[in-house]
């Protein structure tokens, strides 16, 4: 049994530490907020200019001036602060955010990441993704291991990059990989999802990786 979307989010939440400031992308990464371990103080950053946000508002209490980066209505909590987009990206680009969890189309064994455009298709833009992967201290990708039987963990990305040598960890439905992006030590499989075999991972992965002892 490979991990479900929720289990992938739960696994990603294990990367949280007390006192972390964290930016979560759209999709599975958003689910990570449901698995913040009790007792940990974690502040979520939203790149449109908000640090510390609460759950969705009760019906009738939505505020058009209070949204997250996915343009969804959210709520304030006692730790909330608001700031401009320049200050928001000073946090991101200045290395003040501890962890960025985001989705991807492709990740290469050297940490290259592609998640913003497919040539020939309508391109919507990179939003804040290029800033996040370039500036945040630790970058964790959460994604399906393969898309329509095409591997997504590759020797080299074929799609235009969001960042070169930026990914520290990849969590898929089949397992967890670390990438030594600075040291050039390549990719390592550090954890298998329950019921997944090394053979299955090998057959669905183009990238070369070693298996942690």
């Amino acid at each position: 049994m490979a991990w479900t979307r929720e289990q992938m989010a739960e696994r990603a939440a294990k990367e949280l530490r007390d006192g972390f400031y964290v930016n979560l992308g759209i999709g599975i990464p958003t689910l990570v907020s449901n698995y913040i371990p009790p007792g940990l103080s974690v502040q979520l950053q939203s790149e449109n200019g908000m640090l510390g946000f609460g759950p969705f508002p009760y019906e009738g209490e939505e505020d058009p001036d209070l949204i997250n980066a996915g343009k969804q209505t959210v709520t304030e909590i006692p730790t909330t602060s608001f700031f401009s987009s320049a200050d928001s990206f000073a946090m991101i680009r200045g290395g003040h955010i501890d962890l960025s969890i985001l989705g991807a189309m492709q990740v290469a064994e050297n940490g290259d990441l592609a998640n913003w455009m497919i040539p020939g298709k309508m391109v919507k833009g990179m939003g804040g993704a290029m800033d996040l992967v370039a500036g945040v201290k630790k970058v964790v990708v959460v994604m399906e291991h393969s898309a329509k039987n095409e591997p997504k963990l590759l020797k080299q990305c074929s799609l235009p990059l969001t960042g070169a040598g930026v990914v520290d960890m990849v969590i898929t439905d089949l397992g967890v990989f670390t990438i030594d992006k600075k040291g050039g030590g390549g990719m390592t499989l550090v954890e298998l999802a329950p019921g997944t075999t090394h053979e299955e991972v090998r057959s669905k992965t183009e990238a070369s990786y070693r298996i942690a002892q």
Partner: protein
Amino acid sequence: MKKLYPDAQAALAGLLRDGMMIMAGGFGLCGIPEVLIKAIRDSGVRNLTVVSNNAGIDGVGLGLLLDTKQIKKMVSSYVGENKIFAQQYLAGELEIEFNPQGTLAERIRAGGAGIPAFFTRTGAGTMIAKGKEEREFEGERYIMERGLVADLAIVHAWMGDTEGNLVYRKTARNFNPMMATAGKVTVAEVEHLVQPGDINPDHIITPGIFVKRMIHVPNAVKHIEQRTVRRHTEAPAGTAEEV
């Protein structure tokens, strides 16, 4: 010098010309200067280059200027909530220059602060870096990005006094404060108009020096792009359903 104008048309009089560059504040539909955008549409000015994080949605915000084909080029980080945008782009009628969101914010901040260029790691080694000067600092690759100054900046604020001192509300702040600094002329619309001294000077976000003209928009209509709520029986974050 009086900064307050009776309406948007009066506040924009003499400022608009074909082919100009306009910065428009807002993130999605949050904090957009919608009354000023409508007045720009009604003026009929054409071939605009518009700098804004997004491009509105069909019939709302900058979507209004796309409907009338008044925009020649967008400088944005994320678009495509918008069918007309896609149609015009695919037909070759509309240019788009994608900027990473932080690079866009910093280009505007730099432009307003008289900084012609800066280096950033964002986009190094990607197609964004093409044609840009690249340098290494402390072993890391950086690319050079240029500061941006627009002919006109339009911004939306929650409160302003007649000196042009502005306060924003919650996440409606976003790009508005930087854009206020980076227009050769900046026009602000404010929901609540007050007199000098009514705003605690410690709370002013945009000092009036950056604002040349302003209007009062007491009945501003605000839009929600993604209305997400939870039921009263639910408590934890993120468990709500989207409606």
